[in-house]
C-alpha cells in the first residue's frame, strides 16, 4: 500500500456560528488523484484552503508524510512551499507578466536564482502550450490560458502535493478542455493531487478516489466506478441525479 501523502483527521472548521467542516477524515496516497465532489457550500474549498494552511482550523489535524502540519510550532510558510494550489479565479498577479508570475514563488520563497527559475518556468510553459505567452500580461490572456499559467505557477517549485479548487468553474465551456488536459498530463507524471470539481465526467474518467462532501462531512468515498454507478448513500444519489438532470454527466 502506498504511503499516505496527505492525511486529514477529524478536521473541524466553523466561520462564526456556521459549521463548514464537521469532522473530515481523508487520505490521499502518493501519486493518487482524489476528487472532491458535492454541492456549493459543502466545504470543498474550505477543506483545500485548510490543507494549505490558508485558513486556521478549529480542531483536528492534517499530516503531510509524517509531519503534522497543523502543530503549533510548524512554520506555515515552509509547509506552503511544499504544496501547490490553484484557485477558481486563477489569481494571477496582474502587474507581472507570465514569466514573473511563475518565477516569483521559486525565486523569493525558495531562494532559487533567477536563471534557474526562468529556465524551469519556460520548460513548464512550453510543455503546456504557453511558450509564446512568456512575456505577456495576464489581462491579455484568455481564461483558459490564465488558468494554465496558474497551474504552471503552482508547479514551478515542484510541489509534493497539488490542490485544485474548482479550477474550471470560471471558464467558458470551450476553454475547459485545455485545462483538463493539463491535469491529465500531470496525473500521467504521477503528481499527487486533491481536486475539487463540478466536472463529473472528468472526475469519473480520471480520479482514483472520489469523495462526496455533504454538509461538511465526507458522506461517501470510493473509486469512481462505485460512486457514480452505485452510490450507497441516498443523498449521494440525489446529488448525482441533479447533476445528470442538469446535463453535466
Amino acid at each position, binding site marked *: 500500500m502506498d504511503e499516505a501523502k496527505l492525511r486529514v483527521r477529524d478536521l473541524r472548521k466553523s466561520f462564526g456560528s456556521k459549521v463548514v467542516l464537521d469532522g473530515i477524515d481523508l487520505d490521499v496516497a502518493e501519486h493518487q488523484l482524489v476528487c472532491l465532489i458535492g454541492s456549493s457550500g459543502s466545504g470543498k474549498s474550505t477543506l483545500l*484552503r485548510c490543507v*494549505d494552511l*490558508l485558513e486556521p482550523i478549529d480542531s483536528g489535524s492534517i499530516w503531510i508524510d509524517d509531519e503534522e502540519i497543523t502543530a503549533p510550532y510548524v512554520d506555515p*510558510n*515552509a509547509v*506552503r*512551499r511544499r*504544496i*501547490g*494550489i490553484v*484557485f477558481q*479565479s486563477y*489569481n*494571477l*498577479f*496582474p*502587474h507581472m507578466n507570465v514569466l514573473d508570475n511563475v518565477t*516569483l*514563488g521559486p525565486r*523569493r*520563497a*525558495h531562494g532559487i536564482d533567477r536563471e534557474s527559475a526562468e529556465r524551469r518556468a519556460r520548460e513548464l510553459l512550453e510543455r503546456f502550450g504557453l511558450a509564446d505567452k512568456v512575456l505577456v500580461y495576464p*489581462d491579455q490572456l484568455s481564461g483558459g490560458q490564465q488558468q494554465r499559467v496558474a497551474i504552471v*505557477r*503552482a508547479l514551478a*517549485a515542484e510541489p509534493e502535493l497539488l490542490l485544485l479548487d474548482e479550477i474550471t468553474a470560471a471558464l467558458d465551456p470551450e476553454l475547459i478542455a485545455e485545462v483538463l488536459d493539463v491535469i491529465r498530463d500531470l496525473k500521467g507524471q504521477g503528481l499527487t493531487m486533491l481536486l475539487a470539481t463540478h466536472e463529473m465526467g472528468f472526475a469519473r474518467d480520471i480520479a482514483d478516489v472520489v469523495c462526496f462532501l455533504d454538509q461538511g462531512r465526507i458522506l461517501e468515498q470510493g473509486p469512481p466506478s462505485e460512486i457514480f454507478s452505485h452510490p450507497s448513500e441516498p443523498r449521494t444519489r440525489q446529488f448525482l441525479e441533479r447533476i445528470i438532470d442538469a446535463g453535466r454527466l
Partner: protein
Amino acid sequence: MNSESPVSHGPPRLTGERGAGGIGHRWKELKVQDGARGALIAFFSTVVVFGVVTWVILSSSTWPAVRRQFFSVRHLREVWPAVWGGFALDVKMFIVAEVLILAFALLVAVIRSLRGPAFFPLRMLTIVYIDILRGIPLILLILILGFGVPALTLPGVPNDPVFWGVTALVISYSAYTSEVYRAGIESVHESQRSAARALGLTQWQALRFAILPQAVRNVVPALLNGLVSLQKDVALVSILGVREAVREAQIYNARTFNYTGLIAAAILFLIISVPAARFTDWYTARERRLRGGH
C-alpha cells in the same frame, strides 16, 4: 468554368474608404465637418466671451486703480527677483517634502495593515498618529513646530524654520497619504494575498511583491492630487518667516502697499499646479481606459 469563391466583404465597415455604400461615405464626411466646424465655433465663442468680459473689466471706473495696485509692470520688475528666488525655495521644499511623504506614509500604511496580534501596539500607534495629525489644521501644526520647538532650545535639535516647516508638512500630509495607501492596499482583493501566501511567501514578501505594487498603482491619481495640494501648501511655511515666494511678496507689499508681488507669486504657483492637475486628469482617464478594457 470559373469557380471563383464569392468575395467576402468581412464585417461592415463604417468609415469605408471607397464606400461600402453611400452611408459609410456620408458618415465620414459628417465627422470631418463636425470636427472643423466645432473648432471654429469654439474659437469664436471663446474670443467673444473673453472679449466681452475683458471690455467690461477695462471700462469700469475702478480698473485703473486695481491695475496699478495689482498689475503694475514697474512694481513687477522690482519685486520679481525676490519672488522668483523665493519660489525656488518653495520648489525645493516641495520636492523634499513630497519624497519624504511618499516614503513615510507608505511605512505607516504598511504597519497599519500588518496582521497578527503581535503587531497590535504598532497598529494602535499608527491609528493615533493618523487621527491626531489629520485633526490638527496644518497651519497650526506649522506654528507649533516652527515656533514652539525652537523656543524650547533643546540641545541638538535644529531650530531652522525651514526644517520645522517641512517637517510639519511631512507629518501632516503623511497622515492623509497613508490613508490613501491603505485604501489602495484594501482595494487589492484578498485572493491576491492568498495566492501570494500559497506560494510560500511570508507576510512581508506578499506585501512587497504582490500587494503593494498593485495597491500603489491603484491610488496614483489620489497621490497625484495630494501632490498638487502640497505644492500650494508649501507656501504656508511663510508664516514662520521663511522667505519663500509668498513671504517675499508680502514683504514687498508691506513696504510699498502694492500687491503686484502677490500676483507674481500666484502666477508662479499656477505654472506648476495647472500642468500638474492636467497631468493628473490625463493619467486618471488613461488608467480608467486601460482598466475598463475588461
